[in-house]
Structure formats: structure tokens, C-alpha cells
């Protein structure tokens, strides 16, 4: 079975080589003459007001965690779809109950308004 993954391994190798070669060649050949003015942050001629790394609103977290939950749901759907014709009605109903549970959650978040961007 592992021989099926050999092309992917080769792709990973080629990708690593190409990606790193560009960076390494650039670092080796490119001119590198830093000074205080070049290294200072530039913001249209005036000193920077604040740090670039502003804290995000916690609402992004809600969107991200809801995304993860439905991402996991699709992860469960995938092997089910592969073997659907073998596991029969029982397996089909097991997935329908699972999807029903998540649909309850989906209706809850929809009705609660958590999906609306404010």
C-alpha cells in the first residue's frame, strides 16, 4: 500500500527543494546592506502609532470553532460515503442520526443568530 504514496513523497521533496532553493539563493546572492533607516518601520512618513499586532475580536473565535465542528462532521462523512453500499440500512441510519444531531446544533446557531456577522 505504501508504494501508492511514493509519488506524493517525491512531490513533497520537489516542493521542498524548489521552495527552499528560492529563499536560499536569494539570501546568498542578493545584496544585504541594512541600516537604521531601512530597518525602521515606515508608515507614510510619520512614526507608527501602535503595534501591528492588534488583538482580534473574540467573534472570530466563534466562527472558527463552528467551522471546526462542521469540518469534523465532513471527516466522518467521508469513510461512510466510501462504504455506504456495504454497511446497509443500519450504517445509513447511524449516519442519519448523527447528521440529525448536528442539524439540531445548526438550527440552534441559526436561530440564535450566531451565523450573522455584526
Amino acid at each position, binding site marked *: *500500500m505504501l508504494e501508492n504514496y511514493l509519488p506524493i513523497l517525491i512531490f513533497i521533496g520537489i516542493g521542498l527543494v524548489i521552495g527552499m532553493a528560492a529563499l536560499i539563493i536569494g539570501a546568498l546572492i542578493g545584496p544585504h546592506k541594512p541600516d537604521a533607516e531601512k530597518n525602521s518601520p515606515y508608515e507614510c512618513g510619520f512614526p507608527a502609532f501602535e503595534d501591528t499586532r492588534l*488583538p482580534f475580536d473574540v467573534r*472570530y473565535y466563534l466562527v472558527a*470553532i463552528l467551522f471546526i465542528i462542521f469540518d469534523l462532521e465532513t471527516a466522518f462523512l*467521508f469513510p461512510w460515503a466510501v*462504504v455506504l453500499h456495504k454497511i446497509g440500512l443500519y450504517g445509513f441510519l447511524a449516519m442519519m442520526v448523527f447528521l440529525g444531531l448536528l442539524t439540531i*446544533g445548526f438550527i*440552534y*446557531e441559526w436561530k440564535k*443568530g450566531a451565523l450573522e456577522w455584526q
Partner: protein
Amino acid sequence: MNLAQIFTDLVFFSFAAILVGSALMTIISRNPVRSALFLVLAFFAATGLWILLEVEFLGLILILVYVGAVMTLFLFVVMTLNIDVEEQRSSFVRYLPFAIVIVAMLVILMVYVISPGHLNPSELTTTGGQPVNYSNTTELGMVLYTDYAYPFELAGILLLVAIIAAISLTFHGKGNNKTQNPDQQILIRREDRIRMVKMQGDKK
């Protein structure tokens, strides 16, 4: 030991080295965003190891769920918390006792699991034994929705609880919703907005 076995071992050790190295960089890197990205690299290396163990579905799920979604969440959390690097440096000594306790517990657990009588390395199945058309996804699907249907439904309930918990913890209602309401916008009539006022014009 034939050539394919040597090659597999070589791939295993390179993935294992990347995994250990990036895990180390995750904990010693000063910048939290950088350590999160090293954790992504660690997940990729772990995927390589899992595929070498011929559990391809779990390996691909590791990329799909952990790299694709959980790491996004980690980065969001890092951005939300606005961690100050200087402050982190000063609190290193303060958190050291807790760190030592947790690491000691982990080491004791690992030694206990690997000790003889619990998990004998020689009893584990070796890699490279499966035929070309072996599909781990099919094998998993055959048992997950039939033999393990009850734990599977429990997983569904856990996800439902996670949805409700996330909403009740971070969502504070539709309070200051500043979005436009297109229904009301297109139903507006001229009479609702404009009032004509007759004024006495200035006389010349």
C-alpha cells in the same frame, strides 16, 4: 533487509527527525505565531509517520482537521490574546514548577505504557504488509458505522454540546447589529423620507 525496507526506514527517520525538531521549536520559539507554525510542521511530519503505519485516513484527517482547522483556531487564539513577548519572558520562572509537574506526569505515563506487560513493541504489527489495493478508509468505515455506531453517536452528541457551548460562551446576542436591512430599504417610499415645506419666498 531489502532495498524497499531500507528506503521506508529512511523515510521514517527523516519524518521522525522533522517531527521532533519542529516539536522542540514549538516550545522554545519566543514568538507564539512562529511556534504555531512549527506545530503545523509537526502535524505534517506526524501525517507522514501515520501513512507509513498504513493508517492513511487518520493521516489525511490530521492534515484536514488539525492543520486546516485546529491550527486556524490556535492562530485566532494567539491573535485574540495579544501575548506580550517581554511579559512571557519574565514569567518563565514563575510557571516552571507547574511545567515540571506536568512533564513528570507525562513521563511517568509514557514509561508506564511502554513498560513490558502493557505495550510490547515486538507484538506490534510491522509496516509494509498490506497489498496495493488496501484501503484504510474502507476498513474504518466498515466498523465505525456498524460495530461502533454507539460511540459514533456519542461523538455526534459531543459535537452538538461543543456547538452550544461555543455559542453560549462567546456569543452575546444580536445587540449592536449594524448591518443594513435590504427589505426595509427597498420598501421605503418617497413620502416616508421627504417632507415638502411651502415657504414664503423672499420679496425683492
